[in-house]
Structure formats: structure tokens, C-alpha cells
């Protein structure tokens, strides 16, 4: 699917730079020992930015939930309707979610609870972004 290009900003640059190396990194607060996603300027618990860093994760997870988009507000995706938007929970921390179009899975045939692994797709401006494929 033709995703919009990404222009990394200060907050998210490490995430997108890692994606271009086919690595999945998630923001973490060291003192709280807690992952958070999407990234924020400060920790959602201790509210400090001093202990924040980026940690590579395995790229494995499960499908927690999904919806099927039939009326998408994003112009570049409208030709691909209907399509899945699934929520993946990471193996490292099920509280951390990522969205996915689930490439290879037909619309509305999503196996909730199935295992998935990260892959990286190229967007409209060449930026790689994490996507997820069902593994079993």
C-alpha cells in the first residue's frame, strides 16, 4: 500500500533512522524501566525526559484487535480500500501497541491472537516503516 512519506522530526528521528536499518526501536524510560509508544517528549509516568532512550525490540508480537477501513481520510490510501488496520501488541510488553495493514492478510480475515513479525515497507519518499506479517 502506498503510504505517505515521512519527514522525521526531533522527537521521532531515532525511530525512523532505525527503521531505515530494518531495526525496530521503542522509546524507554530507564528509571521507570518502562517502554512507551508513540514516543513522547517525557516519560508518561515520572514525567522526566532525562532517562529516555531507544531500545531495540525483537519485532515479534501478536494481533490484539483490528478494524477494516472502508472510508479512509488519507488520500494516498483511498485506492486500497477496504483494508485492515490491526493493532499489534509487542512480545516484550503487551501494553505497547503498533498499527499494521497486515500485508498478506485479506481484508476482514484477520486472525486475532495470531503471532506476527515485523517487516519494513518503503513509503512514498523512500522511508522504511515497520509493518507486520502473520507468522502462523
Amino acid at each position, binding site marked *: 500500500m502506498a503510504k505517505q512519506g515521512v*519527514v522525521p522530526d526531533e522527537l*521521532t528521528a531515532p525511530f525512523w533512522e532505525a527503521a531505515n536499518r530494518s531495526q525496530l526501536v521503542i522509546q524507554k524510560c530507564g528509571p521507570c524501566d518502562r517502554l512507551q509508544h508513540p514516543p513522547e517528549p517525557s516519560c508518561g509516568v515520572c514525567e522526566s525526559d532525562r532517562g529516555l532512550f531507544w531500545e531495540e525490540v525483537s519485532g515479534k508480537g501478536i494481533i490484539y484487535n483490528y478494524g477494516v477501513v472502508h*472510508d479512509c481520510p488519507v488520500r494516498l*490510501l483511498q485506492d486500497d480500500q477496504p483494508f485492515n488496520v490491526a493493532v499489534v501488541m509487542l512480545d516484550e510488553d503487551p501494553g505497547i501497541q503498533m*498499527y499494521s495493514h497486515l500485508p498478506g492478510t485479506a481484508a476482514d480475515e484477520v486472525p486475532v491472537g495470531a503471532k506476527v513479525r515485523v517487516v519494513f515497507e518503503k*513509503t512514498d519518499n523512500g522511508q522504511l516503516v515497520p509493518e507486520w506479517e502473520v507468522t502462523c
Partner: protein
Amino acid sequence: MAAKNAPTSMYRNEEGLGVWEHRGKVAAVGVGHSPTARRWDERPETSVGAWSILALRRAIEDAGVPPEEVDGLVIVPVTTTGAFWPDDKPLPMDAINAFNQTDDPLDGIAKLSDEWLLKNMPELTGVKYTAYGPVCMSNALNVAAQAVGEGLTNTCLVLKAWHNLEGRYYQGGKNAANAIDGTSAMKNLWGAPACYGTALQFAEYCRKYGKTHEMMSPFMSNSRRNGLMFPEGYWSQHRPEVLNSEDYELARWIAKPANLFDNDIPIMVAAAYLFTTAERAKDMRQKPVYILSHASSETKPRSMTPTLDEVEADTVRTSRMIYEGAGIKASDLSFENMYDGFTLFHQFHIEGLGYRGIKPGEALDFYQGDISIEGPNPVSPSGGNIGSGRSRFWMHTDCIQQLQGRAGARQVTGVKPEIAVSGGPMPLGGNYTVWSATPD
């Protein structure tokens, strides 16, 4: 006098605060609504500013208060339904020049400030307190109630207005771009529409409790029926169409399992209320409706979108705050009137409240019974956003009118209207007001 967002200390957002210190000492008296329209026709007299003035003047008139006695104004400065004035579109100078302007030419057109209103309502000579309750009428009500309770204002107008422009909402800006910033991209790349998060929660709810989308039909029909008896509403004024089960179940999907009717219709409209002290209210034109408390949830989800567990935990917690602050129990509620836009989260509000003893997973079964205004268990007598269009304030107007006994054809008849709660928007993060026909 430039208003600022009300301080967070004005919101009651924690458990353990006890009964609200101003319980029964603040009252709503006057109600004023503008007409409704699907979109702005770019005439000055139908602008969001013009309709705000109209709503405010109607609330003043309804309460029977000399305008110079109004000394407070709490408004929501954001008026968009999701539509913004395009950068490349010429400004609507006829509408702009029809009013006294502030430094922002879109003030009164696509946003609203207290300064603009006071410049265009010369009769409001006594206003000494202004504040913004951002986002929704529900926020502004909490701020106004607290402000009157604290004595910051004695006779306070509360206003929320909406503008809607030509075109489909949320289709411009970043959504039309070929590339977007990295922070927005974390969600935007996947193209989920606004109702997606609620659709997810509903999907999980159905899996967990064995429910189906079709079970929403009675709620939808009931809401539209009630909306068609709301003469201030969009469907009543412009499209008096019933919504039956077939209409609902055959509607096109937006983000399955949310379909077209699970989304409210964006409209132009404004509403205003007049709040005052219980003492001052005695001499006004309408029967006072007393505020027993207000409550707010500021809970944020852990990650991309709230899970069902997060939603269910927070609605229960919010309800504990509602009941604690008002000094009431679930069994004291005369009817249920929480927010519904999107429809698929209304059951979370009901279950959180424990309305009529409903427990998690039971609301859709409850919908299959008598939830009409004539029965013993009214659900959404206002009809909400589904019955009257996107305003997020129909349930507030309805609570006031029901308790005043002037809800007209919508008046509940199967119960005595004594105590109600209204608020929203989302189950995770919302503002609520508890209303009573008596101060104690």
C-alpha cells in the same frame, strides 16, 4: 479582557474529594439555541459568531435576566467540526466586515474568542469574569459551575458553538499530503478514521461478551426518535427521517464495525446556558436546575489506542467520582443521558454508571427492552448526537429541560425527572455534570 483556559484546579478529576463543596448552590436556568445547518452558507447572519450571539441572547431572554446583570462568560474557543478555513481560500470579507473584529480575521468565522463576543454584544456591560473550557460544552459547564460556586461570577453564560464548512471533513491538511512529519506518521500512515478507536473497542467488547453490531439497532432507532422530538436539532429541522433497523444495519461501513450511522453528522449550531447561584435563580423566569457536582476524567491510554480494559476501568472510576461528588447512587438516576458520538461507546458510559444495575457486557441486552421516554428505563432521551447532529451538548440541554419539565414531546413520562447526569465525550477522558430538580 482576554480569557485563558481555566486552570486544572477547577476540574474535579480525582477520587476521594468528597461531596462537592458547592453542591446544590449553583443552578442552570436559561437555555438558548441557534438554528442548525449542515454547512455554513457564508452569509454573515449564519456565521458561527452570529449564531453564538443568537444563542447567548436566547439564553438571557429565557432566564429573564437583564443582560447587564451577566457578569461571567465561559466559552469553548474551538468551533471546528474538523473543517478549517483553507489557506488558499479568500477570506469571507462580507461576513468578517459585518461584525466588530479582533486581530484574527477568522474570529467569529472559524473560531471564537471572548473578545469577539463582547465586542459584538454591547449589552453585556457587566462581564468581569471570562474563561475558556476547551474542546466541549462539557468542559465549559464544569468550569462555569465551579466559577459560580467559588463566587468568581454570579450570573454566567456558558457557550459552545460549531462551524462546518464545505467539503468532507478531515480530508485536507496532513491527510492530503504526500509526506508528513514523523510524529504524525506514527498513527497517520495507517489511515484510520476518527471512529476507528471506538470501533476497535466495540469489536473487542463483542468478542468478550458475545454481542453483535445488530444489537445496537434499538438504541439507534430510539435515539433518532428522540432526536426528531428535539425541535432545536438538525434531523428534526432538516431531515425528519426515522431510522429503522434495516436502515442502520445496511449502512455502509466507515471502519468496520463502525458504520455511517455510528458516526454523528457534523453540523453548524450553537447553544448557551445561563448559570447562577441557587439564591439568585429563585427570581428568574425558569425553574432552576441545581448542580450537585461535576467530575472529569483525564486518563490517557498506555499506547496507541485505549483497550477495552482501560475503557471499562475508567468509566467505572469516573462514575465513582460522579456519585461521590454528588452524594448520590446509581439508583438515584431518573434516566440515562450520556454522550453518544460515536454510538459504539455509549454502552461503556451506561455500564460504568451502573444505570439500572447494568453490569459490564449487559448494555446491549438492555437495549433490547423498553428504553423509550415513556418507559421506566429511558436511555438517551435527548437522542444525543445521533438524534440531532454533532454538538456534544444535546444531553445537557435535555437534562435541564427534562428537570424543568419543559422537554416538550421528549418529556419522560415513565419516570419522575429528579436527578440526571450528562457528559462526555469519550469514555476515557470526559467531563460530567450532575443535575437535580431540587438543591438537596
